[in-house]
């Protein structure tokens, strides 16, 4: 609870900073504030007793929430650090953008620590509305406007479906409270609305994580949005939605029925395959990463097949994926800063003009492809073992085949960086890109070498 309050207070402070003309100090102060909040969250986690505190049965801040919240806060710190340079030319609006991101974080934390469906819905709306604004934040750019509009239409539709699902669950059980619903779901005799409601909620969440067949918005929105918003969507927003889906399913039901699991299997395999095959043909890096994100969503869905004990694996996978994504976007934002598109051609010769950033991007792509010693490898491995234990070998085989396919397009970017000649001189590189890129990839490698740092957070 302290985390949520502190984040909201920080958001209000960012708004006030605009009034008192403190724009210059805004980014550093926000980062320090977020670091302090990260400290609070980790501290909450280490004091075991206070962690299960209930707050008017709206918020439960347990280990699951603490673990994921910490990840979200770290990702937000990176995003805000990058904002400083990205919004350099829009000094007057910088506090707006940062405020929105901080509030988005508040929504994200609410989404992983709710204990009441109304709280869950408030969280998802805070997050989504902030994202709609950010997607359309390049006011004068047609593509950005289109992206924002598309995302808003599709997203609000999904929110509506989720809300409908919540209503049906309420109709079936008479509760919004997760614990009560869980207790009721164990007994027999629930009306048919209950599974329908759950299904509708799953559909809404699958939309948010961009799993096949609810993925059509992702490539367009990713491509059209400003690069930093794409970074946010593909790392933070995706991870939040996945964690929430996991929490919803494990919190509301005793366990998935066989039929539900089969549906998850199909959606998972379809997401992996469609995402990867479409990614092979993309020229635009953001679009490519959108499809790669779809396939990673398919991988993460595997965690739902062993619902009772996959929380730590999911946290590990999402951390590995998000940190690698963050590192790659730090480089992508730098490379495409003054370009009007994000085609792979722009990366030609980066290995010569800027070896360090090229190495960071290479490492992050290798991590996403699942090559050891990067954490992406261990993440995939843990998911595979867990899924084999759940006796869904077919998903694992599909996952393996897809890992192979994914190498094809990740390496397209690496090849462009190292084998093509550069088309332009090295541009000046603000320190922050190095910092974000290197720190996130180093974190990625560290949790690769010591997975227990992350997995022990929840277990």
């Amino acid at each position: 609870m302290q985390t949520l309050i502190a984040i909201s207070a920080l958001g209000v402070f960012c708004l006030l900073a605009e009034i008192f003309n403190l724009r210059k100090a805004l980014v550093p102060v926000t980062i320090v504030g977020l670091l302090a909040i990260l400290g609070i969250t980790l501290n909450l986690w280490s004091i075991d007793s206070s962690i299960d505190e209930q707050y008017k049965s709206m918020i439960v801040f347990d280990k699951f929430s603490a673990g994921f919240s910490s990840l979200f806060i770290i990702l937000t710190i990176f995003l805000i650090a990058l904002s400083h340079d990205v919004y350099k030319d829009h000094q007057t609006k910088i506090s707006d953008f940062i405020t929105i991101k901080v509030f988005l974080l508040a929504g994200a934390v609410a989404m992983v620590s709710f204990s009441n469906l109304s709280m869950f819905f408030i969280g998802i709306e805070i997050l989504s509305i902030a994202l709609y604004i950010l997607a359309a934040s390049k006011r004068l750019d047609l593509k950005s406007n289109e992206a924002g509009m598309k995302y808003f239409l599709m997203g609000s539709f999904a929110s509506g479906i989720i809300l409908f699902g919540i209503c049906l669950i309420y109709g079936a059980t008479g509760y919004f409270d997760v614990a009560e619903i869980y207790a009721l779901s164990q007994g027999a005799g629930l009306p048919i609305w209950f599974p329908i409601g759950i299904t509708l909620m799953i559909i809404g969440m699958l939309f948010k994580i961009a799993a096949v067949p609810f993925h059509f918005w992702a490539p367009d929105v990713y491509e059209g949005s400003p690069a930093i918003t794409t970074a946010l969507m593909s790392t933070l927003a995706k991870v939040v939605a996945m964690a929430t889906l996991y929490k919803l399913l494990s919190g509301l039901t005793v366990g998935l029925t066989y039929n539900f699991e089969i549906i998850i299997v199909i959606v998972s395999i379809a997401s992996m395959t469609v995402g990867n095959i479409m990614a092979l043909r993309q020229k635009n890096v953001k679009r490519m990463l959108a499809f790669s994100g779809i396939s990673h969503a398919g991988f993460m869905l595997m965690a739902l097949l062993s619902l009772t004990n996959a929380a730590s694996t999911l946290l590990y996978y999402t951390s590995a994926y998000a940190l690698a994504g963050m590192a790659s976007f730090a480089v992508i934002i730098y490379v495409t800063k003054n370009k009007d598109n994000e085609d792979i051609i722009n990366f030609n010769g980066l290995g010569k003009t800027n070896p360090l950033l090229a190495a960071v991007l290479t490492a992050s792509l290798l991590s996403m492809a699942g090559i050891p010693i990067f954490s992406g490898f261990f993440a995939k491995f843990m998911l595979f073992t867990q899924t084999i234990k759940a006796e869904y070998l077919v998903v694992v085989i599909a996952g393996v085949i897809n890992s192979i396919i994914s190498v094809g397009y990740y390496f397209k970017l690496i090849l462009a960086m190292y084998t093509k000649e550069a088309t332009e001189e090295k541009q000046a590189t603000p320190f922050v890109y190095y910092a974000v890129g290197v720190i996130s990839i180093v974190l990625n490698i560290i949790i690769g070498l010591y997975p227990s740092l992350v997995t022990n957070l929840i277990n």
Partner: protein
Amino acid sequence: MDVTTILILLLVGAIATYFSGDKLASKVALFFSVATLGVSLYLLNEFSKGETINYLGEWMEYPKVYLALQADGLSMLMVLLTTALTPIIIFSSLGNTYSNAKSFYALVLFMSFAMTGTFLAVDGLLYYIFWELALIPIYFIALIWGNGDADKRKKAVVKFFIYTLAGSLFMLVAFAYLYQKTNNFLLGDFFNLRLSATEQFWIFAAFFLAYAIKIPLIPFHTWQAKVYQKAPTVGTMLLSGIMLKMGLYSVIRWQIQIAPQAAKTLMPYLIGLSIAGVIYGSIIALRQKDLKKLLAYSSLAHVGLIAAGCYTLTLDGLNGAVYQMIAHGFVIVGLFFVAEIIHRRYETREISAMGGIRSQSPKFTSLFMILVLASVALPGTYNFVGEFTVLYSLSQVNIWFAVFGGTTIILGAYYMLKMFQNVMLGETNTKVFASITTNEIITLVIIIAFLLFFGLYPKPITDLVNPAIKDILIHINR
């Protein structure tokens, strides 16, 4: 001192090389690789005295992974192969200049590190990590410093990477499957599993995919020739000299030990496939116009025979396979170096553009001749010991295997001598063949001396390997 010293030294060497700058890089790399060779010889001494040089430490809690490095005679020999060939390879490359040399030599040492780790690890996941790590440096070495048209090279190298990665991912699934039965990855615990015949079959198949691509056996060999041709010679030497031995070693260390039942059932097919590779490789080699490609196909034929030896599951077969791995490692590095020496002078790898070198450089011709003879397993060279032992073991299984496997000697002699004739003999070439440098002579002489010495006195290697193979056979026949 234990085996971790070798790994640490190579890793530190890679980092030091990178930071030493382009001018010093090759010398720093050479220094560290020689130092590693020294350490591994010292460890060999300790090992033969019966001192324990293994290392066991915990790495991860979940999944349970140990830093388990264990040296028996077999691992020790493979480590020595790696640490002996690395300085030779680096030394042989001193005559070339590479752009961005610091990264180049750092990658070479890093690859050596990963391969040494593969030979030592007895924890499945650790082994897998080393196995995959070895792939990344060779990918960049071949991609950035390779020769020929950039687009074609890219295609060949990416194909190689995806192929090998694809194979090893199935191995990873096999490990994941075994892991959820034992809850750790230790090889020793895998032995104690009572796997059913079906389980063994699928695990064997998953491993087979990884190893058959790496070795390579037909029909998984299609990446090989192009990559050997396109990679810089150092990369080709690393690939053919050491890296493909990783696959063969792993067959002995992991595949046939974890799934012995499947190996026994499938034995005739496996040997048949390997020997088909021998004949196929030899015939294709006959028709090659490119020197490096010819050597690549000859390599395909030789490793086919080694794989056949491994899959006989007999003491002689396994012993012979190991001997032949060592012999082939040295001889193929020597032959690729010869190709490089010619390329330095003639700027070509087309056999038709060569010829008539003998009268210009008799010294070089004699050294080359010895290598060619070693490659076709003339008695007196170590290759003879290996090849003979393998053929003998094949004849114990089925005489026809030995007959068809034996064609490698006949066909090998045919294409190697034909190649030698076209490259070296004939009328004096109009192009001047600059006389061979001292460094080049030293490199070739070291390789030849090794092959001849152990060809005449193979006992030290035999004594080292034999006990280890006997242990392995106990596991296979458990």
